[in-house]
């Protein structure tokens, strides 16, 4: 079911952990040498949505979150 607003932060943390575990998501540390990706998490969400055949939006929408909450294998879907 859709999330209520106060749960959004919690859901975002959950999604971040999911992407770290299964999509090799790493929070980018600021670096003067590297060009900044403004929204690395959106890129990883896109990658995950693409893998599962979801509509690729880069947004943590209902369907994407629902997919993340499914019981699953602990191996990553992609590797660096």
């Amino acid at each position: 079911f859709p999330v209520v607003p106060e749960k959004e932060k919690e859901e975002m943390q959950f999604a971040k952990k999911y992407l770290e575990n299964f999509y090799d998501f790493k929070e980018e540390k600021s670096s003067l040498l590297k060009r900044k990706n403004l929204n690395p998490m959106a890129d990883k969400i896109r990658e995950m949505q693409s893998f599962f055949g979801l509509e690729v939006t880069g947004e943590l929408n209902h369907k994407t979150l629902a997919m993340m909450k499914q019981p699953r294998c602990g191996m990553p879907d992609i590797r660096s």
Partner: protein
Amino acid sequence: YSTFPLSPKWKKEDVTYRILNYTPDMLQADVEEAIAKAFQLWSSVTPLRFTRVYSGQADIMISFASGFHGDFYPFDGPGGTLAHAYPPGSNIGGDAHFDEDENWTKFTTYNGYSLFLVAAHELGHSLGLGHSNVLGALMYPIYMARDTRDYKLPQDDIDGIQALYGRPKEPPALPTKAFPPQEPTEMTPAEATTEMPPRKEPTETTPSKAPVRPQDCDPHLSFDAITTLRGETLFFKGSYVWRKSPYFSDIEHDTISSFWPSLVAGFDAAYEVDKRDRVLFFKDNHYWAVSGYSIEPGFPKPIQNLGFPTSVRKIDAAVHDENTKKTYFFVGNKYWSFNENTQSMERGYPRKIASDFHGIGHTVDAALQKNGLFYFFHGANQYEVDIKSKKLIRKMKSNSWFNC
């Protein structure tokens, strides 16, 4: 299908495995059978032969563990991650770990995960396969409950494993059978497809018009209860629920137990108080409160707690008016008004439905408040009613919400 980087695989055809410990959820013999059948899936389509050893180091060490268990990937309690396995290699390579915090079953049931299916998937990793993005493939990363009777390895998995090891030297004499026929009480194939409810077919994007199934468009379709839930609308009938959501265009048809396993299906009435993120379900003289998938503690409670006299044994329908914060309960040819702010029944009730809602001259099976209007359902018909004037606007078929 996919393989791991550099495509690691066993360089021999005889691969050993050892079961290090057992889950208390199942008989040891059933664990052994599930694991053996899982190996058999892969050996039937490759030249690989699997031999069980009982001591020492095996190529594939199989174990059950909770939380942190000696590798860098701790398990996470019930749900979430069910198991993991390592690609072919020495030491931990090839090993398969199963989360002991899950409830493991030999076959697919409502209350657990099929060890056979999960083991078959994990052993795919142990042999060198990564995750497949093909829905229905065994190596798809999401657990999908399915009927394991006569289970055959999907073609995508056969293609993957044969890309690593080739075909079997001799074709198998008989098709591999996963398990002997199940007891009929275990789970029907139809039930097996509904165990993981909120999941949508991931290959669907957003069709312009929802597919409509014949049963949804039965002109005689009636409902037991209807409610909104976080912007979605749920239509209940017997053990089933139709789910209409603004977030996806098709209508889902699921079992009620797939959302709330511990609730007894066959609701009489339901309504949402959206400001409290709470839905109340009524069955006979009891009611339950849920928030999303969670059932609030302390329920069920008797409906008399809401102010009904003991002569009221069940509620026919309920609907909440979010503007006035009043909930109307329909019982026979009368209705009651409940003030959600004061949590008390209003004085002067019950009143006759027909007296106040002009044009509604019968009992109400189910009621819904949507887009500023009330919808009262009676048999195969529904009646659109203006909330303020309580006047009938129009009459429609009950299934008009299903894009028929």
